[in-house]
């Protein structure tokens, strides 16, 4: 497998703020590579450097073997880019938008229709509607079609699912999977939603301009060191306070209807249960649980603090 995107100690500063601190990674051809982290972690800066829109302050990167600084013109021909905000022309119709983006890449809708067909067909019946009047989900599909219409080698999607509901997000990821398996397009995608890691082949967890870890989602979960327990009782609200007050509990975070906790060495589960029951908790349930990417992310944040 060859690397289609290679970054070597990329750095970027804005004034005194380090947006990116010496990032190095490689993306293999034909994989979905997720860059996962909160807003302000440096995702957009990274994408802009790789799409030749920003100059790095240090390090270098290549896309499809071309240097992002020196060969920016050629790279721009080979990539598709979907920035974070809705970036289409709201006063042009659906079809006019697609046509426009096809023609600025010197191609036509017909030439690459097979690539976008699955996605575009879902909005085709609105082809004369102004893009500004589309619903969020439809805008997203149009934007993806526009980024794909010139058959790019690599697709850069910067937070395509931010602010999108879980159902539409799932649909969107299914579209991406299809693009990868059926057309072999390499996809770099950034997201603040940790649960979307599952859709990626490999992911990087980014925080404060640094990759805290980079691996397959399973690999990241595997390397999670502590033993994680899920706790619940009838008095959920008080439970969190009691867990935090107990000095043998290392971390306690709410996770849906339970709390995920890690314990100091030497504390057994019956001991913890006993402690909680003396605090007045009833129906205490403590079960071992496999960590999610979000657990891993928080553990890594904890380590880097």
């Amino acid at each position, binding site marked *: 497998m060859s690397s289609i995107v290679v970054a070597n100690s990329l750095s970027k500063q804005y004034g005194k703020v380090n947006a990116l601190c010496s990032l190095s990674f490689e993306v293999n051809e034909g994989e979905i590579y997720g860059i996962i982290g909160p807003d302000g972690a440096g995702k957009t800066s990274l994408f802009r450097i790789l799409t030749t829109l920003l100059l790095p302050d240090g390090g270098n990167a290549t896309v499809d073997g071309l240097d992002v600084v020196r060969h920016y013109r050629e790279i721009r021909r080979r990539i598709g880019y979907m920035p974070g905000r809705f970036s289409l022309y709201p006063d042009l119709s659906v079809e006019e938008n697609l046509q426009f*983006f096809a023609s600025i890449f010197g191609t036509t809708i017909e030439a690459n229709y097979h690539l976008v067909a699955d996605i575009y067909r879902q909005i085709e019946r609105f082809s004369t509607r102004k893009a500004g009047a589309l619903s969020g989900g439809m805008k997203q599909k149009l934007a993806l079609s526009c980024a794909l219409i010139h058959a790019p080698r690599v697709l850069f999607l910067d937070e395509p699912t931010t602010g999108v509901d879980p159902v539409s997000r799932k649909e969107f990821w299914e579209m991406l999977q299809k693009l990868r398996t059926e057309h072999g397009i390499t996809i770099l995608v950034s997201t603040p939603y940790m649960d979307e890691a599952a859709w990626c082949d490999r992911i990087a967890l980014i925080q404060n301009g640094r990759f805290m870890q980079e691996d397959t989602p399973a690999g990241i979960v595997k390397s999670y060191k502590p033993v994680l327990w899920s706790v619940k009782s009838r008095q959920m609200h008080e439970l969190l306070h009691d867990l935090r007050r107990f000095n043998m509990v290392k971390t306690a975070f709410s996770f849906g209807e339970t709390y995920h906790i890690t314990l100091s060495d030497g504390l057994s589960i019956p001991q913890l249960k006993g402690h909680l029951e003396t605090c007045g908790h009833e129906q205490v349930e403590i079960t071992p649980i496999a960590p999610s990417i979000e657990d891993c992310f928080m553990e890594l944040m904890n380590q880097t603090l």
Partner: protein
Amino acid sequence: MKQFLTFVRKEFFHIFRDSRTMLILLVMPVVLTLLFGYAVTTEVKDSRVAVVDFSKDELTRRITDRLATHSYFTLCAAYENVSAAEKAFLRGEIDMVIVFPTGFAADFHHGGNTSVQLLIDGSEPNQASVRTGYTEKVMASFMQELHSGKPMSTSMQIIPEVRMLYNPQLKSEYNFVPGVIGLILMLICALMSSVSIVKEKETGTMEILLASPLPPIIIILAKLVPYFVIACTNIATILMLSYFLMGVPMAGSLFCFLGISLVYILACLSLGLLISTLVSTQLAAMLLSLLLIVPSLYFSGLAFPLESMPTALQNISSIVPARWYVSAARKLMIQGVEARHVIRELGVLTLMTFMLITISLSLFKKRLE
């Protein structure tokens, strides 16, 4: 080339689909022309007139009465000497002074040829000329009456000698046409074009355009082409409106006029481009353009006559492209001079355009920062 044309077509879509933009681009030039044109041809009522009568004879009294009863004039005062009248002028109490020289009636009856002096505020050339016209008409009809029944001797007449205060040359009332064109082109080529470029930055579409293989110069050219076309349409519209509807002549060469207009359009477009490279929001682009448009309004002669400005201000005005254009356009259109008399203006404008294009292209970024 096809990429370029699609882009231009897209720009026209943006323009045609926004009714406010359309209003500014196509309707406003017409409205402005009509507005200024109407201001020229309109009646000037209630002119306040003062009389300085050195003759005090029957004839001067009759003429004064005639003016006083005329619906367009109001007789305000009589002064003993001209300097007193001029002071009233300065205080803004009167609009016009009629001075009858000593022995007016005697001169008239004996020589048959006499003159009155009109002092008029020339800082409003349009009104001044209308007032002169009215006075002339009053004099003429008075003469007619005086001679009613008798054969009129051609040698017997009263000649008003007009002395303009503040604006002695009294530039033609048609000055507004070059002024309006100068202003409109600045508005469309600098303001509207810079806003349209910056809009792509603000909405994020510039990010996609820059990440595409389109050369940045093509993006810029394609964005400017529609404004160039619209600017040309506007010149044609304004010229036709003023020629056919308001009878404004084209005294000089139309060809030269269009030539210098073209250079001016390019200057304005490059200004627009420069603005768009300096700012990143539409609001900032608009404010910066206004900073340029306000002086243009001043130096286009629409608000004040250039000639009555202090020298210092006139010197400052030399860095405003509109000033050079309006000056050349006036010479060509109204004074009807030959092309060689506007060489200086043409030279300055060409130099400005060249500099602006160089600066803005060197500032234009092929990346986001």
